[in-house]
């Protein structure tokens, strides 16, 4: 075959692979997006309950004579929805998919599992974004929060980088969770509340000090929230790091977690094929 023909073949295969990946992404995202509209009880569990929590913390700040911090709480409450989504619908998801038999079918498909994870992430992000906006609106109305946007492009960049890094982390955890089985519930529970505390959902992470704040920065929401708060509430100060540094760290985290997800997925799939963990539900 001529070099030009080989190049054309490679290009065509690459395009075909990309097309397959895109279709997989859309296919897997679809159930997540439509389920939000078809399960009305999510309004109670995923909006009403978080709003109650936001209200509780908001009144704590008000009673302490710091009503200006209610904006911190409202934004934290809105972003907490993403963390919950990543924990329960990304990290633990492949474990549940194995129980139902979906995992076998996903793996048997010619598309890469990374596209399946990307679809899960995209679908989860879209569905959660809507919930998050509802929490933000209700919280803002209740406490009369005013936002002073410093830079809309930077705000959007921080949000996007936070999402990519966060869902990258979720993808990485999901493949690692395949190593665990019945222990998944316990791990999820352990991760939920401590992480909510140290990432500063309801207070500035700066209050935790440099060491704990630095450690908490491994979770992308820590710096993401801090950066977004700097972009929305500049008058309050309380920043942990300058926005430029936070953006750079978030970019590195996003890259690390995406590469980590790809590596861990390949590694776990290989290991699981050798040990038989993809299909043996009882193990």
């Amino acid at each position, binding site marked *: 075959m001529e070099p030009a023909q080989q190049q054309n073949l490679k290009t065509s295969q690459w395009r075909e692979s990309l097309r397959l990946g895109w279709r*997989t992404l859309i296919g897997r995202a679809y*159930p997540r997006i439509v389920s939000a509209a078809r399960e009305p009880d999510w309004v109670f569990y995923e909006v009403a309950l978080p709003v109650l929590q936001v209200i509780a913390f908001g009144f704590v700040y008000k009673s302490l004579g710091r009503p200006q911090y209610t904006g911190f709480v409202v934004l934290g409450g809105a972003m907490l929805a993403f963390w919950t989504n990543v924990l329960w619908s990304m990290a633990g998801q492949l474990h549940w998919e194995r129980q139902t038999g979906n995992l076998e079918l996903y*793996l048997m*498909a010619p598309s890469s599992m990374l596209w399946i994870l990307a679809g899960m992430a995209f679908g989860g992000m879209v569905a959660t974004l809507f919930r998050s906006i509802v929490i933000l609106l209700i919280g803002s109305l209740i406490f009369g929060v005013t936002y002073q946007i410093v830079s809309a492009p930077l705000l959007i960049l921080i949000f996007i980088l936070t999402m990519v890094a966060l869902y990258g982390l979720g993808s990485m955890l999901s493949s690692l969770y395949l190593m665990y089985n019945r222990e998944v519930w316990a791990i999820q529970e352990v991760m939920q509340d401590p992480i909510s505390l140290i990432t500063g959902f309801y207070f500035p992470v700066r209050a935790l000090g440099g060491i704990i704040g630095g450690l908490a920065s491994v979770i992308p929401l820590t710096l993401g929230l801090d950066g977004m708060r700097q972009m929305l509430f500049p008058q309050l100060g309380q920043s942990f790091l300058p926005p430029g540094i936070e953006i750079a760290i978030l970019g590195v985290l996003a890259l690390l977690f995406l590469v980590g997800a790809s590596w861990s997925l390949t590694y776990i799939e290989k290991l699981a094929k050798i040990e*038989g963990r993809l299909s043996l539900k009882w193990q």
Partner: protein
Amino acid sequence: MTAAHMHADSPAIQTIDVRRVYKSRSGFTFGGQKAGKSVTALDGVSLTIQKGELFGLLGRNGAGKTTLIKILTTLLAPTSGEAYVDGLDVNKYVIPIRKKIAMVSGGEQSGYGILTVREQLWMFAQFYGVPSQAAHKKIDQLLEAVGLGDQANQKVYALSTGMRQRMNLCRALVSDPEILFLDEPTVGLDVEASRIVRNYVRSWMQEQRGRTVLLTTHYMFEADELCDRVAIINHGQIVAQGETDDLKKGLQEHARFQFELAEWAPAFEEELKQSRGVVSAQSMHQKGKVSVQIALENEEYITSAMQTISSAGGHVLTLRRIEPTLEEVFMRLVGTADDEKSAGEDEEK
């Protein structure tokens, strides 16, 4: 040699001395495992299934059927030996193999209950890169073919077990696979649903030459009805394989016949036993009729046996040859294998 060249004239499925050993875990540490008990699920399985065949793999629970399917569907690595799908090594050509295959398991609960049947099938079609328009066209055809045309917009969670399994069959076929793995596809289904599944599998194979099915089942009549050839697996080893008729003939030491008589005289049985070529004769009285089963050294002796009855004054109403069933073949082979195994174990003790 490239993957494209390797599968030109290859069998649909080939395994050469495949072994699979599971090591059960007594405890878990991240990145490793503690030593545990080993279980040999497959022990030197060699099979060849040609393109266009509907091949049955029969065995008890835990015989190794599902393990073999998992290896062929690239979900599990063989511990040793070689396995090929359309000439492609399952260890090396994972993606090319996945483009050609699909699987349906019995009692499968895959997908998402919140989706409609149509959406569920569309979603799986996307994982195979089927364009949406083509996918919807194919979905309509498949749903009509399995009698689910009016359920296309029904939510998956509302389907009965039989409907769900028919949908699962459509899910497997929506990507137009060349090789279909059916792992006990009718388990738990009622008679009607089982029949629809079986009939559609057969017609799907006939639609296009070269389509291949590997079916595992507990139901011997299902294998007998559907399969061109079968293999019987026991304790991870193939104990017999071939066309069902050949396996049955192999089992039959004597030609067996059954005939009904209008009247019975005790002398008939004695006369028959003394007749040339008759190995045994046994009479049964049921609902006012007399039924006699005879075993002959050779089927040619049936003429002389009938003459013996006529000479003794008997009047034969019906006559039919008794063929052994696949179930008898299975029980004989699996039972024998188990007897030999336990005898061997006794000797070792």
